[in-house]
């Protein structure tokens, strides 16, 4: 079910992980991406697509979660994380138990709307800095390992 991997990313100290399986990750851009993940407000939001199979949620399949998030875990790390993730899932189990019969489902928790922008082009002035942070760039393209038909 969607979302489990997020908890893994958000709630725990991050082990070494790869942004793209095929990318080498020793560059500054990888650090930026890692930073982004930590700064993100994922956990605080309301997940409307959360599974609702009663109070007993399935135990986490940690190796699979790690794979979907492109995180490499050693066997001892899997063992270490499993109970911690289990704890978080159990907490969601408690939330599931709340009686919401009379409550209208919310699409978004923080809906204000009308937060649109006009369709007016503006060129970002510091493009060089962005390009400089790309791990592997060969003018004018971002260079990546050969892509096989795999998603």
């Amino acid at each position: 079910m969607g979302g489990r991997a997020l908890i893994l990313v958000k709630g725990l100290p991050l082990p070494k992980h790869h942004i793209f399986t095929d990318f080498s990750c020793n560059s500054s851009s990888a650090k930026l991406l890692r930073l982004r993940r930590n700064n993100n407000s994922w956990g605080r939001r309301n997940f409307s697509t959360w599974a609702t199979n009663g109070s007993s949620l399935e135990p986490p399949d940690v190796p699979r979660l790690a794979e979907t998030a492109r995180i490499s875990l050693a066997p001892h790390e899997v063992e270490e994380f499993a109970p911690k993730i289990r704890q978080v899932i159990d907490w969601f189990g408690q939330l599931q138990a709340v009686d919401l019969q009379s409550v209208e489902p919310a699409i978004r928790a923080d809906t204000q709307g009308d937060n649109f922008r006009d369709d007016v082009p503006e060129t970002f002035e510091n493009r060089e800095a962005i390009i400089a942070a790309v791990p592997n760039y060969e003018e004018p393209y971002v260079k990546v390992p050969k892509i096989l038909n795999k998603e």
Partner: protein
Amino acid sequence: MASTVFRSLQSFPFCLHPTTLFRRKNGIFYCTIKGKHSQTATQEKQTSNVKVSSHPAIKTLDKILKDYEAIIGIETHVQLSTLTKAFCNCPYNYGSPPNTSVCPVCMGLPGALPVLNSKVIDSAIKVGLALNCKLSLNSKFDRKQYFYPDLPKGYQISQFDIPIATGGFIDLDLPVEFGGGHRRFGITRVHMEEDAGKLLHSDSGSYSQVDLNRAGVPLLEIVSEPDMRNGIEAAEYAAELQRLVRYLGVGNGNMQEGSLRCDVNISIRPIGQSQFGTKVEIKNLNSFSSVSRAIDFEISRQVQLHSQGQGDQIVQETRLWEEGAQKTVTMRKKEGLADYRYFPEPDLPGVILTDEYVKDIHNSLPELPEIKRRRYEKMGLSMQDVLFLANDINVAKYFDATIAKGADVKLAANWIMGDIAAYMKNEKLTIDEIKLTPQELAELIASIKAGTISGKIGKEILFELLAKGGTVKGIIEEKDLVQIIDPAEIEKMVDKVLLDNPKQLEQYRGGKTKLQGYFAGQVMKASKGKANPGLLNKILLEKLNAKSS
């Protein structure tokens, strides 16, 4: 060369005419894309078609195909022609130097927050309404997670469980060449999302290249109900969507540039069976004719497997259409459903629409293709004319403007579809680029109808106006082209021609009456093409026959 499967496709029975394949090459889809097929290619097709239909094995397959039904659904991605990307101010222009239109938002850099372009909402509502959908006044964006090098953020901002529009339909008319007929296909949903970058494969094949200009460009994904039954219906569905986005002005619908992309799902089942067969997806369809041919090929392939007891070889997979080989090939087998781990996009607020906002957009919608076609039909035009004129919004506008100036409907249609279309094709111009205005076309038609100029002179004036502009009245005056309708004047010219051609006159009177055409030509020439042809012939005949008795 072609396998049995491919060859059998050429006499595919779902098509209404045996010449389907041949015809299709001639741009039957009324699509506005430029036809790339040369005459030679057409000839080749025709020859092989004829050869193949007499093949005994093919007849058997034709028979088998009749026992099956194909179920076809299409997912279409329409790129919106906004000036900026969906969630950042980066300008988007097709063909810009790679990686020049990027910023922290579309590159997924930390701290950058997306803000929705209002034009994306406008366009989505327009398309939703035009497709007769129910709009969600309260929807949201979701993250679809997957890892791919053309997706800098590691997720695509899309809409998952609450798309902006659902449950609509689209009406279209099949081309007369395919037997015609009206069709209504269901629309499951329309949702907003962002495009990924473009992945290029280097020639050496040792690495790939990414251009992120397209990353973050707004798309509408339009999902059809599985209502199509053959390649023609599917191609016409795609062509109608193209027409719709062009009429609405929300996208250019250009398939070659990838502004309109179709992924097709196909399954077959024996007629009478309610359970669906295994669904196969086809990608890489970049023209209407490839949509049509790929589908017909795939139906044929699946039916053959099924009828030979090899139905288990039809697996859930994505296949690519190979234009060169004219066949579909395995791209990847699906190993269960991909887990995209959707969840609501935390960086964007919900999308809330008011009834008033929707109503305003509804009131601003142009006349849509289906409505236009029905209106043209009511004006008495043939379906062939209707489809031609309504195909391209600019042609339709031109036609509408011409008849608004009082031009005869059928004559206006004939001029536009005949000489004007031919001129545009020769000169590679669009109707907006020709110098003849609708006003002058109406004037020209009226002048011919009133007898001021002959039809022949009318044509000459037309070509002059097309190339140089100006007015009908101006050219008539300048070149002294007013038709001669004075019988006395014509009589004088006839007399002179008869006098100048005594030998031919003698032959005519001796029984060689075919020479009438020769005399008529001489008189017309003498009048510089201005003599009224009816009068000319009447007077000429009288004179020719009068003195012979």
